[in-house]
């Protein structure tokens, strides 16, 4: 299992984490070692029928891992005047401070 520098960059982007170019080689090497170590579980022929174990009260269980839109009671446009790329657009903090001055 060898993790490439590009894979580290892609994962870091998904994790919203800055990783410097200088840190990439060591990080890629250490991630490769960790993933190689944990991949040993694939040597066990666990049947598909094995249900995941989650401790705690029966009422607390994982829901199905499905990607689906989570409906809002109101659309974003009704909650705020501007919404783009999943973010509400608001004035910069400095602009508020200027307005108060």
């Amino acid at each position, binding site marked *: 299992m060898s*993790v490439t520098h590009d*894979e*580290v960059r892609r*994962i*870091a982007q*998904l*994790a*919203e*984490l*800055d*990783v*410097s170019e200088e840190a990439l080689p060591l*990080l890629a090497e*250490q*991630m490769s*070692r*960790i*993933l190689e*170590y*944990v*991949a*040993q*579980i*694939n040597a*066990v022929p*666990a049947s598909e029928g*094995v*249900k*995941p*174990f*989650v*401790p*705690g*009260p029966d*009422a*607390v269980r994982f829901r199905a*891992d499905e990607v689906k839109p989570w409906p809002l009671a109101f659309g974003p446009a009704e909650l705020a005047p501007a919404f783009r790329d999943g*973010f509400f657009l608001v004035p910069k903090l400095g602009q508020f401070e200027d307005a108060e001055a």
Partner: protein
Amino acid sequence: MSDPSEALASAKAAADRIVKVKRLNACLTPIKELRKSLVAQASAAHPSGVLYGMPVAVKDNICTLEFTTSCGSKILEGYRSPYDATAVAKLKAAGALIAGKTNCDEFGMGSSTEHSAYGRSLHPFDKTRVPGGSSGGSAALVAAGAVPAALGSETGGSVRQPASLCGVVGIKPTYGRVSRSGLVAFGSSLDQIGVLGRSVHDAARVLSVISGRDARDATCEDRDSLRLPNVPESLQGFVIGVPKEYFPQDLDPAVRRACDRAIRLLRELGAAVREVSLPHTAYAVATYYIIAPAEASSNLARYDGARYGPRFNGSEDVRSLYRTTRGEGFGPEVRRRVLVGTYVLSSGYYDAYYRKAQQMRALIAQDFRNVFDRGVDLLFTPTTPTPAFKAGEKLNDPVAMYLSDIFTVTANLAGLPAISVPIGRIKGLPIGGQLIGQAFLEDEMLEAAYALERAVPAGEEA
């Protein structure tokens, strides 16, 4: 203790003792603030409480109103929680005094307390060695005699491992026995608040107080507080299993000798001891290091510079704010685990890693059920494969560091209670033996621990 002047004296004495062991870097709370708070707490404490006047230190990832909660991380530097963790609120209601916040590996991720943004803690008997982790500050303070007990937290052995390395008692309760409300989340299906104490009795008293139902945590079972058992005269009627997988050929011979002596003493106390097998043990560390980072990558998504703690420069837009803050605010081990967690959950790898690890977890839990169903009450194992190791020895080798948890992660994966009790010394360094119990049968586990503690010459070379 029920006299306010005694509680005040206890508070002042605890502050003095914590000052004396300052060199250990075990307590993160500035001493002036700690002293002032302890005196105020002693004046306000309930004299009728069962822990009245008892100083209890608290790991830095458990929320307290009194002191900052930084989780050993730069990303939460100076953060003050607006509420007490339920465990802390229960301690206060019982009259205990919160004796500062203890150093830990960042967000509980580590086995040496070297991964703290506030510097490593020192082993109380040998400053060149680590006290274990992640609750290393709590273990070091208790071992140095500064406090009789401290709260720690466990995700994969972070109470029992430092307890073993420092020569104190460490209890990890059943998952759901103690509320997680106010425990900063790392791996939610594994995390539990635990207790480190100078004796089984001290640790058990604190556990009894913090246990029990809590409407603020849906994963906390609807049960009464743990009732403390009596110290038994013998262990007649107990069946103790010794899992062969925890005694591999290459186990440190001195650890094996200490365990053999403890097993002999358990037999002499009247317990029936038999060898058992937990066949999936070999895969426990690998399973753990998929599930825990996966859960951590999700739980730690909230630290982005917008909601908690400081934000770091380079924030020309919101994404850049997140990335810079997280990149600079998290230390190397947390960054590694967040990346590994994101990797194993990402599209294309989910089935090979996370789904498979969940199946392995089920098989590991089933191993324990099989043994307990065959009449075994408790299991005895070493807590750690070696005594305290040198600082820096495993810092650049994450997998070697992860293997420090080899005998502890299984109880977290299976949600079972476990306790580490000192069972001897190896070249002067303490080593612990572990009893693993059945879910919610901490009372049986504590009975055996009381008996073992009284019988074993913990201060003698193995």
